Every structure is written in structure tokens, then in C-alpha cells.
């Protein structure tokens, strides 16, 4: 699931160093039980991946993420990403059943340790 960051508006404001510092690294939030199941630890570099691609994140183990859901906050510029791609690489062109909107916020992924 992708959520909004307080310190950017989608990819807008990536030019602001003050906001980038407050937004911190491009992180993926994962519930502690999910992380334990996969043998992943806080601060570790991970890949979120699906049939569309894979994206490197810094893992943040956090009870703020419910079980079974990982959360990526904000849309980063590729230049500020830990890998070559940003969360958009995991986004499908599927539309919502209501009103035919985009599904940027909701995509099925799995997570594994990087390297």
C-alpha cells in the first residue's frame, strides 16, 4: 500500500532538501510478525517485488503496518531512491471498479532480503 508523506506531494517537492531530510530514506513499513516470519530485520535493505518489477527499500519494522500489508510512504525521485526504481515500478494499470480511477495505492507484492 502506498501512502502520502507529509513532506512531499506525490513526486512534487523532491527538490527541497529540507523536506527530503525530514521524510528520511525510502522505507517500506512491515509488521514485526511478518518481518520475523521472513527473517528480516529493521534497517535492512529489501526488495519489494511482483510480476511488474522489483524495488529496493530500507525496511522499517513497525507495528504501524498491519499484518499482511507493507506500506511505502511518498513518491521518491529515482535519484533519491536506494535502488534504480521507485514504488511506481510495482503499480499496475488496473482501474478501480468504482469510477475507473487509478490503483497507485494498492498492489500485491512480496518482500525479500536484498542481495
Amino acid at each position, binding site marked *: 500500500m502506498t501512502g502520502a508523506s*507529509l513532506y*512531499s*506531494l506525490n513526486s512534487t517537492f523532491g*527538490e527541497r532538501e529540507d*523536506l527530503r531530510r525530514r521524510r528520511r530514506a525510502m522505507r517500506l513499513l512491515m509488521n514485526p510478525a511478518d518481518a520475523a516470519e521472513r527473517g528480516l530485520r529493521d534497517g535492512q535493505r529489501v526488495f519489494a517485488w511482483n510480476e511488474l518489477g522489483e524495488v529496493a527499500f530500507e525496511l522499517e519494522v513497525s507495528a504501524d503496518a498491519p499484518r499482511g500489508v507493507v506500506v511505502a510512504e511518498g513518491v521518491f525521485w529515482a535519484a533519491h531512491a536506494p535502488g534504480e526504481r521507485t514504488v511506481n515500478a510495482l503499480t499496475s494499470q488496473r482501474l478501480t471498479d468504482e469510477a*475507473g*480511477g*487509478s490503483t497507485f495505492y494498492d498492489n500485491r507484492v512480496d518482500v525479500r532480503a536484498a542481495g
Partner: protein
Amino acid sequence: MPGGPQVPRAPPPPGYDALAVPRLVRSVCPYDCPDACGMLVEVEGGRAFSVRGDPEHPFSRGTLCPKMNRYQDTVHSPLRLATPLRRSGPKGSGEFRPTSWDEAVAEIAARWRAILAEHGGEAILPYSYAGTMGLLQRNAGHAFFHRLGASRLDRTICSPPTRSRGATPSAS
């Protein structure tokens, strides 16, 4: 407003060069939130020096989000495009050269006139959604494109499901 510069309310006198002297102007955040937050911007010589919330704005009452505080750093960012860019290489090559507004408008107008004459207005599709488009700006181009008879975009890229009847909690 004790302790702060007064906001000019009357229109400036004839001959007044608005950009030549330091002044505080009222503005409104141009981004998408419905709040349309009021801003006070310190301007001198065509540059903004500070941005802060307008305490007299009836809804936001002086509060700005972290992004709009120091918005002058975005407006004057060296990474910001300051002129139109014209593609100077093959599509996808990423090659562009700066051009003037006059040149850009003249070229676009000439090409659109040719398209309109040959194919009609529906051959032009304005593509936009929002972002830096507040309540006023987001519909500002519509009248122009309607007058051209342009095609209309089904603008569903971002949030239409949040406004659809089925997704409205109060819908029965």
C-alpha cells in the same frame, strides 16, 4: 496584526512599481487540498523571501503545512524550469533547448491552427489532472479548450473513486 508588516489592502497608486519595494502580499496555496490555505509572502525585486500562513485566512488561520513553509525555496529552486523547453533531438533522447514564451506560444498556436483547419477541434486532447491546481486553477483552462471544440479527457487518473457514490460513506 501587531508585530508584523501591514498587508496592503487598497489598490496601489498609478505609477507604483509593485516589484521595486519590499512588500507583503496575500496569496493562496496553489496545491490540491480543498483548504486553499492563505499565505503571506514577502516579495522584493521580483523574488519571494519568505512564506508564512495568513492568520486572517478564515479556515487555515495562519497554519501552513511543512511543504508550503519555505515555499520560496521551491519557487526559486535552481532545479525548477524557468523557461519553456523545446525538444531538440529525437523523442526519448532527453534533448531540449530553452526557448522564449513568445516563440513557444507562436509555434503552438501555428500548429494548433493547422490541426483545427485540417481535422477540427477534436484532434486536440488537453491532458491534465491536478497537483499544482487548487480550486481556482484546476478548471482554468476548460473554457479555452471548450471554445476550441477540443476533445474532453475522462479525468480519472487520481481520486474519482473517492467521490463516487458507491465509495461515499453517507450514500445509502
